[in-house]
């Protein structure tokens, strides 16, 4: 409410501000729990049951089960918290980043080797090229 958001016009980007933090609180706290090996084991053994221990919304739980990181971010997740999920899965930041761009991990890795996504056309919503 009247939080100034000068970053709202950056394409493909969700800034983890107070509003998002409120929406994502329980999702992010669930992620923190995966920093303990015991909890990782329990989560891996029965993801649904483990998620049901947290006061997350059904949509948040489903996004976790689906490993849909863009959706988790829409629902208040922050990537540094969400990293505990793909770390638990034994996957890398690059893997997770690739899934969020709609590219295969190979395509994404190749883009990075070629110098990464250009800022040209990716600075403002109204100039977005739509892909890279």
């Amino acid at each position, binding site marked *: 409410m009247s939080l100034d958001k*000068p*970053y709202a016009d*950056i*394409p*493909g*980007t*969700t*800034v*983890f*501000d*107070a509003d998002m*933090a409120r929406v994502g*609180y329980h999702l*992010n*706290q669930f*992620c*923190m729990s*995966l*920093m*303990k*090996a015991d909890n*990782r084991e329990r989560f891996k053994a029965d993801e649904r049951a483990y998620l049901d221990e947290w006061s997350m919304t059904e949509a948040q739980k489903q996004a976790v089960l689906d490993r849909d*990181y*863009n959706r988790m*971010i829409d629902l208040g997740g*922050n*990537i*540094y*918290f969400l*990293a*505990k*999920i*793909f*770390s*638990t899965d*034994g996957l*890398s*930041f*690059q893997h*997770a*980043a*690739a899934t*969020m*761009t*709609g590219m295969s991990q190979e395509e*994404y890795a190749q*883009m*990075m*080797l070629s*110098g*990464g*996504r*250009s*800022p040209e056309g*990716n*600075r*403002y919503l109204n100039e977005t090229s739509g892909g*890279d």
Partner: protein
Amino acid sequence: MARITAGVTTSHVPAIGAAIDLGKTQQEYWAPLFKGYEYSKRWIGEQKPDVILLVYNDHASAFSMELMPTFAIGTGEKFQPADEGWGPRPVPEVVGHPELAAHIAQSVIQQDFDLTLVNRMDVDHGLTVPLSLMFGQPGAWPCKVIPIAVNVVLYPPPSGRRCYELGKALRRAVDSFDGDLNVQVWGTGGMSHQLQGPRAGLINREFDNDFLERLVNDPEGLSQMPHVEYMREAGSEGIELVMWLVMRGALDDKVTEKHRFYHVPASNTAVGHLILENS
């Protein structure tokens, strides 16, 4: 008299830590990156700092949305590597310098910085990867480390200007400490990277190289850059670069640039690295 002799900046990408821990530093993908730190390892071997004020951000490891400090200083005796989801990194524990840290805390609070003091916390890749890059894989870190954690996870982080001023306050604090200590200040994180959403993978070489140049030669001007410019130009996680200004504020206005390195990519990130000495 304690004195700040030099500053180091470096990215702290977790994949770099994994490459070191898994013995991949000579692989084709990683070799060019580690080559950029060969000078640095020799340099620090000669410098032999007693204490490093290591400015980094916690990545939802020690701090969560239960409690999120803007600036936290580690005043404890020891800090363990954090388990970030795949077990702790196999690196030595970090040994603090409680006396100097407490002195800095007292001085900096009296300079109107609203620090949070922390005696118990684990330290994540943001702090341990720079140590690995500079010192390799020793059985124990060769010097004391005072962790200085800056919030860049929850918007808004402190402004670049505030970070730069914190550096100046740290300088005054160290200068007034009685012990005879060679102190370095490190600023870590960055350079351009975005780890989230459809824009993930953004890299802005031009911004990064301009940032390196201005950090050395126009830090006052650079410190005025608003957050949104970091995020727009260098990616949402590029905001970590504000932490480099803490390092720069702690040095002389004019510094000697000993080393500069820039490399793309390390996983999702552009790696930048500077070594600056006070005259």
